[in-house]
């Protein structure tokens, strides 16, 4: 890690070091991949109690002005205009060719929209959005805000006494509140499949907020390693790994993020490809895979018909600590995408039998 000095740091960098975080480069930031407890323990703790993640590397911005929702729809097929105040939604930014430019969260805060985009894409995303804004609509980047994720079944019991307004939210609800006197904007969402919140706070107060949350009963720090294994068990895509500019929303099985109105009007970038694929099917589909035995099959592993031709490849693969076994997601040719289809994974030259499996691998436990 000779280039650590050229990496950006989040407002919690000192806290990560004090907690013994093992810092690695991720999307240009020095981030904790794990703390001394280790990825396995951190993962299992999030599933059984609660974990606190620093996701301040992600891009936050506000979209302000009359017609902000309609303007954002110029780059996404999500229905932004129908998003009610106090609600958040998952969406895709699209290329003109129908590929996925990024995936993101957008919330209606009443007088403005709040966007959260991937760290690795934030500069490109914000430039793309700005390129389509009409006069009167303005994108305001929020580099001075931190983002924390409190995730797990213990999150709500920990949060209830200190921020009842946030425990009143249902999944994908968002509200402004105070935690220990610190003004926050928190949405009931996350990237683990568990109940919890993503909490945006001023950078200058992020450490105080994190320390307060870590002091709540059952809350332990969790790093990017656990975040990755948790999101894979939850069947959630990682941009740049499972989806990118070459994958379409239909191939990626993310068609649900396209608004019904948008699918009538076909008025978004790449609508031609999406419309064609919905009508005629795609050549490949994103699926879940469960290898037999304990051996993980990682990204880029080739997928074969048992004893036969190549039909695809894994994009994300690893060992699911809660699943108690290996799991993967990837793309396979459409005739082989049905649940239960037997396939073979070639790992270090040896075939491993596996099956196409519905995702999530571990059931979601959102506060519906």
């Amino acid at each position, binding site marked *: 890690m000779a280039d650590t000095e050229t990496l950006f740091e989040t407002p919690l960098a000192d806290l990560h070091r004090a907690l013994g975080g093992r810092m690695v480069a991720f999307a240009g930031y020095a981030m904790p991949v*794990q703390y001394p407890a280790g990825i*396995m323990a951190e993962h299992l703790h999030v599933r059984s109690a609660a974990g606190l993640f620093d996701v301040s590397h992600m891009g936050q911005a506000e979209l302000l002005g009359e017609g902000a929702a309609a303007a954002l729809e110029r780059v996404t097929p999500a229905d932004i205009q129908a998003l009610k105040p106090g609600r958040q939604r998952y969406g895709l930014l699209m290329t003109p060719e129908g590929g996925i430019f990024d995936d993101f969260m957008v919330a209606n805060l009443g007088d403005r929209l709040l966007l959260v985009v991937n760290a690795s894409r934030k500069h490109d995303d914000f430039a793309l959005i700005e390129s389509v804004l009409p006069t009167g609509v303005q994108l305001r980047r929020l580099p001075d805000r931190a983002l924390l994720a409190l995730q797990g079944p213990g999150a709500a019991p920990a949060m209830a006494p200190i921020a009842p307004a946030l425990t009143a939210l249902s999944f994908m609800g968002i509200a402004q509140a105070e935690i220990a006197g610190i003004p926050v904007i928190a949405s009931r969402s996350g990237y683990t499949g568990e109940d919890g919140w993503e909490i945006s706070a001023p950078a200058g107060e992020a450490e105080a907020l994190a320390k307060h949350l870590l002091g709540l009963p059952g809350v332990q720090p969790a790093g990017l390693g656990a975040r990755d294994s948790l999101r894979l068990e939850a069947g959630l895509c990682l941009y740049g790994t499972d989806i990118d500019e070459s994958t379409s929303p239909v191939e990626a099985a993310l068609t649900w993020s396209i608004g019904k109105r948008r699918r009538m009007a076909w008025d978004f970038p790449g609508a031609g490809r999406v419309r064609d694929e919905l009508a005629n099917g795609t050549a490949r589909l994103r699926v879940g895979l469960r290898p037999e035995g*304990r051996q993980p099959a*990682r990204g880029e592993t080739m997928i074969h018909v048992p004893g036969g031709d190549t039909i695809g490849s894994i994009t994300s693969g*690893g060992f699911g600590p809660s699943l108690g076994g290996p799991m993967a997601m990837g793309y396979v040719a459409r005739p082989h995408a049905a649940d239960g289809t037997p396939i073979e994974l070639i790992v270090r030259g040896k075939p491993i039998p596996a099956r196409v499996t519905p995702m999530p691998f571990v059931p979601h436990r959102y506060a519906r």
Partner: protein
Amino acid sequence: MPELKYTQDHEWVQAEGDAATIGITDHAQNALGDVVFVDLPEVGREVAAGEAIAVVESVKAASDVYAPIAGRVVEVNAALTDDPGLINREPTGSGWFFKIEPADPAAIGALMDESAYAAFVDSQA
């Protein structure tokens, strides 16, 4: 008990009778994190020094384990198949990987001793 010898690939080697027992160091298991799977070599396989002959998989990644010396694999630790966590809990004890009958017993003596290995690890930090 003969002393442990070490390689720059973070393996330990302990000569005992005709065979040398080999595993990964505490430093290595700590760097890898929780081990979830090991792929061990076939017994009877002739291996060259520095050849990748086993794979250890943590939650996060797969890593090769190399033969520290040339020779023949005479035994592998079957207990690791059911309980790969032994590698994390007892890396230089019950978490051993395989035993090699050395082609040249003198090759073990040429490996690093404990203090040289400690200095090597420090130099990598």
